[in-house]
């Protein structure tokens, strides 16, 4: 998302639109990105329990990937995974 200049934003730090928090993609903060090896994953969903940002997606009782728009890359999922199927890989940042 292109960041606005000082001439384009409301004064006083005001937010002049309701419900705009959903546009805020905290995933942009990430330095390391979790990558899962699907073959190794046993779908225990311990990562889902531990994720502090509700960024583990689960469907039909199975691990279904990551919400990269909100995952901040803390690495807790990789740390708690009993079969070590999640790797933290350095993000390639867009310039």
């Amino acid at each position, binding site marked *: 998302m292109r960041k*606005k200049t000082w001439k384009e*934003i409301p004064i006083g730090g*005001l937010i*002049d639109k*309701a419900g705009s928090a959903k546009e805020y993609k905290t995933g942009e903060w990430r330095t390391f990105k979790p990558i899962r090896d699907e073959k190794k994953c046993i779908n225990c969903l311990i990562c889902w329990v531990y994720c502090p940002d509700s960024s583990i997606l689960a469907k039909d009782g199975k691990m279904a990937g990551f919400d990269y728009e909100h995952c901040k890359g803390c690495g807790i999922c990789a740390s708690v995974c009993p079969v070590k199927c999640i790797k933290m890989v350095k993000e390639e940042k867009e310039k």
Partner: protein
Amino acid sequence: MYKDGKRRKGKMSKYIAIAGDQAAAEAMRQIEPDVVAAYPITPQTEIVMTFSQFVADGKVKTEMIPVESEHSAMSACVGSAAAGVRTMTATSANGLAFMWEIVYIAASTRLPIVMPVVNRALSAPINIHCDHSDTMGARDSGWLQIYSENAQEAYENIILAVKIAENENILLPIMVCQDGFITSHAVEKVEIFDDKKVKDFIGEYKPRQPLLDVDNPVTYGPLDLQDYYFEHKRQQSETIKNSLKVIPEVIAEFNKTFNRKCDLVEEYKLNDAEIAIVVLSSTAGTVKVAVDKLRERGIKAGLLMPRFFRPFPAARIVRSLRGKKAVCVLDRAESFSGHGGPLFNETRSAMYNQEDAPIIKNGIYGLGGRDIFVEDIERVFVDLINIAKTGKVKSLVDYIGVRQ
């Protein structure tokens, strides 16, 4: 008033004998803000006391919030101004210090709160008398600051401040300063404008983005991190810079309405002066007397009194001081930089690299209410005469009136 008790169309002013605090309260009565949240502190007490009486007597419809501290006073003002109503408070010294956190929030949130500040020394040691250490400490808070020479100016500046603060191109809070006890408690003849004329001048308050406008919801005070905080600060600096263009327009309207000659700065016999003093607030009156005495002896002395310190009217000051031989800036505050007071440093910085800049030195005076006399000012001028003659400054920063 006429015999039938009615005012005629001429919209008369009246002259009354009141002290600076009461003059400030009179201005507040005429402005009749929707909300006043204030805590009494010497020497501002009479403002809150007098205004509370107006509220109790039903002379104003203001919602008066007698808060338990200054931190709460400014917090309530922020809430009230954000909600969308005209809001005022008043304070002094330690009260202002106690507000500190919220003082910055009021400015950065762009809330046009008007606050008379009766200048008083900050502790320690505890002292209730005048110096400018309280508001000078708040000079980087983002508030505008007007300094008043006497009760008349304190009264007028508050009315002017409302109009400036609420201007759509400014929207910033303003401190209207007057000297503690010297101005706040000394009775003077003050011209009080016609109530209706004041109300017409300030007009109805139309908030820009009120919190209570449920059809257009806004969020006040959200988290603002590395990605946008700097942009918001950049906006604030631009607004302050731009206010130097907007304020003279508001002043012109004020002058026309009330038949006044206000300006960003006041000059006294400065035009042909060779030596000059720059000073804020009540001491300007003392300097005027000294200037007159020196002029009688054929010495070309003059005075520059910045009425506005925020925004800092640098260009106007340069215009006023250019071509003078020697200037002494008098500060009623110590900035503890080891290099002079705040008014001195900003004035000298404004003159740097300017053509025909005078030699500029600093005098720190009057801390904790120490009196300054005409003779003290005359000695400053004598020093300036020698500097003008020799081009040499013996000491850059003098402490005037302290026992050596």
